[in-house]
């Protein structure tokens, strides 16, 4: 039965995923000048179980709703962690929420990163800018499953050293955690001892055994397009390379078509796609 036919038959909105659940802001943390991480808790106390890579529709009463990736730990469903950049009216309102404020939450929505495919293999996570938020659940998962993975490498690119998201957490990861982190920025002064350049420059030098690597990529679409090319060009199997796509989502459940990308609805079929499913679409104008 399709979602629309369910609606036609008068199924209650909660069952079709359209009714937000009330949550309260338990804590907030300013990550960057325009970026906040909120810890939300359900008013009814019911945990919100989710999988790495899923998103929610966050609703600010009287203002609107917006799709936000979950950036928390799947092992801690009591806390819904969402990292938001103030871009438009709704996200600005979310960033301005104080502790104790209420929001509506629909979800979790969308599919998830296929983390189990990385078991027994090398896991490479490639993120750019705020694209680190949707992959942070993979990092939590990888740390908890470190002994099941051959290696864990994180390649992160951002604008400048003071724009590193989750900086303390990311820079705190080390060989002791069994994780190798490579960070590159677009521009820096001499206080920065890391790399300056684009993420695609770091990928080849950080890959261990491309044939045995599963890669998961999130960031601006152009960055993902070139990262996909760099990964596959270096030998990572295309079908083992996954991207988290982004389009303007409205319903979040495949009804409205706002987030259509060629044959895909990002909210319903994604946001995570195997590279071959979106590779050619990324170079098509106006998609």
């Amino acid at each position: 039965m399709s979602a629309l036919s369910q609606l036609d038959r008068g199924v209650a909105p909660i069952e079709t995923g359209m009714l937000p659940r009330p949550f309260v802001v338990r804590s907030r943390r300013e990550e960057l000048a325009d970026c906040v991480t909120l810890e939300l808790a359900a008013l009814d106390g019911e945990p919100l179980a989710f999988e790495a890579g899923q998103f929610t529709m966050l609703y600010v009463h009287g203002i609107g709703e917006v799709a936000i990736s979950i950036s928390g730990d799947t092992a801690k469903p009591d806390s819904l962690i969402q990292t938001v950049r103030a871009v438009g009216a709704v996200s600005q309102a979310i960033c301005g929420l104080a502790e104790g404020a209420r929001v509506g939450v629909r979800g979790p929505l969308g599919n998830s990163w296929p983390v189990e495919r990385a078991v027994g293999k090398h896991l490479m996570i490639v993120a750019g800018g705020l694209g680190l938020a949707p992959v942070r659940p993979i990092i939590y998962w990888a740390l908890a499953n470190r002994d099941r993975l051959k290696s864990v490498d994180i390649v992160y690119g951002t604008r400048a050293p003071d724009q590193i998201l989750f900086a303390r957490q990311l820079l705190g990861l080390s060989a002791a955690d069994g994780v190798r982190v490579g960070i590159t920025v677009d521009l820096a002064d001499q206080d920065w001892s890391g790399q300056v350049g684009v993420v695609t420059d770091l990928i080849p030098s950080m890959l261990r055994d491309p044939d045995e690597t599963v890669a998961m990529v999130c960031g601006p679409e152009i960055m993902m397009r070139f990262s996909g090319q760099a990964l596959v060009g270096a030998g990572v199997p295309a079908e083992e390379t996954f991207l988290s796509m982004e389009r303007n989502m409205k319903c979040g459940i495949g009804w409205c078509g706002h987030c259509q990308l060629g044959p895909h609805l990002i909210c319903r079929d994604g946001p995570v796609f195997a590279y071959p499913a979106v590779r050619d679409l990324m170079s098509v104008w106006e998609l």
Partner: protein
Amino acid sequence: MTDGNIKSMADILAAHPLFAGLDKEITDLLGGCASNAHFSAGSYLFKAEGAADVFYLLRAGDVALELSMPGRGKLIVDTVQPGHVVGASWILPPYRWRFDARAVGDVRATGIDAACLRKKCDDDPSTGYQVLKRFLPVVAGRLQSTRLRLLDLYAPPSEVGRAL
């Protein structure tokens, strides 16, 4: 430089990604222009506007390419990693470096005498063509990376397009 030294430098060159797979004849020839180099952290391989008379194939350690900007100090425009080459201005006149190149940590490299290499390339255009074919991807790759950074992909939405 003895024959033994030339051969060992040729082997080192042949093992570097830039020249890997080149005919042995050519790496032997290039070996005559090569020498080992070491730079301690913070020292400069070369400085902007200086004569581009030696370029470097990095074997260990990163090198930051910088420009000094009044009021903002030294800005790093690129970082070169081991396995890559520092310096392309030796190929074209006026053979002057465009950036400062600073060793971020201890750097081990193979230095190539640019005048020596240019002469060998001029004397044997076939060798010169092989060498240029190795350098063109380096230059093209840096151009592409620079273009991507010009897009300022990670800019906050409020600043998108500000540089255009």
